[in-house]
């Protein structure tokens, strides 16, 4: 888990969108480093957590702009990499699981073809072998009937199955780093626990690095080693997941306190107070 050299080192990452009303800064100066561990990024909608994940893969289209003092993945400077070099990294070395299987899987291609497409095109693997690998990947994410799922189209799968297919797809090339953007928010709690344990095993067994993006602080605190809390494009607090309950930043505390608890008080839930100095800093 503790590599001397970090897998990913990001310094002062900025994502800006040019709009008619002036530039919108979605990410403003985020720095972090990641070893072979589980890093959580938490924040509300619009906090820039998804954009941070996408920026690492340079998956932001114009008029969006990605800038960083440096962004080094395994010794390679991602900011200086050509489009061709980026394509070689994406999927192969850095995988990304998107939020919503409904929109991220190809609706007119069956699951088997989607899973084997990369293997056949990129790795020039034969049909039979590719299919075997795809089925093994589906089994790895605990899909009970992989043969049937291989022939199914995305609309024939439930949300949980679709999400697991996405994870299987990302895992086939055995990436060193997986960026998972809300991989479980469409899932039921019991399925969620299952998907998390799949990801957990992969980090442990393969020594994969994981960036886990979520809006659910509780989930992240249980699942990750370290947590970055983002607000308006900035990291307001970095904290070991185990210490989350002792978080010092008022925003982190606010996020925790506004969640209802089983057996908690019935009175009105405390809202998130954004009047503090920290919130003013963020908009400056």
């Amino acid at each position, binding site marked *: 888990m503790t590599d001397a050299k970090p897998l990913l080192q990001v310094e002062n990452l900025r994502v800006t969108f040019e709009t008619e009303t002036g530039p919108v800064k979605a990410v403003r100066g985020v720095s972090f480093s990641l070893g072979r561990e589980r890093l959580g990024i938490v924040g509300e909608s619009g906090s820039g957590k998804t954009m941070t994940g996408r920026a690492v893969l340079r998956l932001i289209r114009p008029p969006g702009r990605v800038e960083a003092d440096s962004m080094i993945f395994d010794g390679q400077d991602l900011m200086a990499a050509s489009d061709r070099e980026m394509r070689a990294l994406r999927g192969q070395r850095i995988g990304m699981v998107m939020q919503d299987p409904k929109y991220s899987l190809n609706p007119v291609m069956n699951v088997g073809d989607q899973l084997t497409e990369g293997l056949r095109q990129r790795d020039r693997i034969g049909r039979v072998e590719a299919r075997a690998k795809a089925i093994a990947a589906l089994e790895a994410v605990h899909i009970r009937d992989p043969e049937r799922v291989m022939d199914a189209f995305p609309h024939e799968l439930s949300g949980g199955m679709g999400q697991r297919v996405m994870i299987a797809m990302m895992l086939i090339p055995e990436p060193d780093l997986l960026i998972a953007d809300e991989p479980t928010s469409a899932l*039921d*709690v019991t399925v969620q626990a299952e998907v998390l344990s799949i990801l957990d095993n992969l980090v442990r067994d393969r020594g994969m690095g994981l960036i886990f993006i979520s809006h659910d602080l*509780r989930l992240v605190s249980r699942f990750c080693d370290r947590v970055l809390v983002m607000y308006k494009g900035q990291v307001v607090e970095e904290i070991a997941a185990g210490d989350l*309950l002792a978080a010092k930043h008022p925003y982190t505390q606010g996020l925790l306190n506004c969640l*209802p608890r089983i*057996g908690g008080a019935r009175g009105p*839930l405390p809202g998130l107070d954004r009047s503090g100095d920290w919130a003013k800093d963020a908009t400056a």
Partner: protein
Amino acid sequence: MSLIEVENLTVTFRVKGRAVQAVQDVSLSVDLRESYGLVGESGSGKSTILRAICGMAPVTAGTIRIDGETLPTPRGRAFSRQVQMVFQDPYASLHPRHTIDRTLSEPLAIHGLPGSDAKVVKALEDVGLPTSFRFRYPHQLSGGQRQRVAIARALMLEPSILLLDEPTSALDASVQAEVLNLLNRLREERGLTFLMVSHDLAVIDHMCDRVLVMQNGRAVEELSRDALASAQMTTDYARSLFDASADRMLAPARGA
């Protein structure tokens, strides 16, 4: 006598000659001014019960009574004056090309009620939205603001029962807190009865007096608020749901 009585309800969908029983033999009763929760995984039939009450699902057996009277089919205007529904996704449940004003005044127009101008302003104030939002379109509002509009719309006809289908699961934690507080305040002020669906036990626990745990279309176990808080469930399924609840992850003993 209970306000809402559902007895041995079965809902069967027929798809390509195949019959799918989404709800099987479920009974529940909700008292006046009570808040009752339905919890379970997707596909457990919890939302289907709400839809069946509204007449939007094919009921094949059982009865639904409100205020002691069996509901007519189709439901009719008297029903919509008494029962209204708030849906899960505020992005999909508001007409994208109607202004908030039109969305809110439509129920009044359908029921031929006067004074829509003042009532729309009052409704916006009641749900904590500025009245300047009146002539905006849904896409100009955030998710939480849209859900407030959906709640305002449901309250336009001054119903006594609100059916809430995952009203906050599409919202951020801080916005969820605001909407839950709003719902609790309105229930208090107007003496509303809630039948609420959620997959989040912590939300149900916060909002409801009693909860029915469902699995695969069947009722598994009914729990009072105290029984839920003190983990006194008797079935394995209810316990597994309780254990998997995200809320438990913050327990100091970490999942213990």
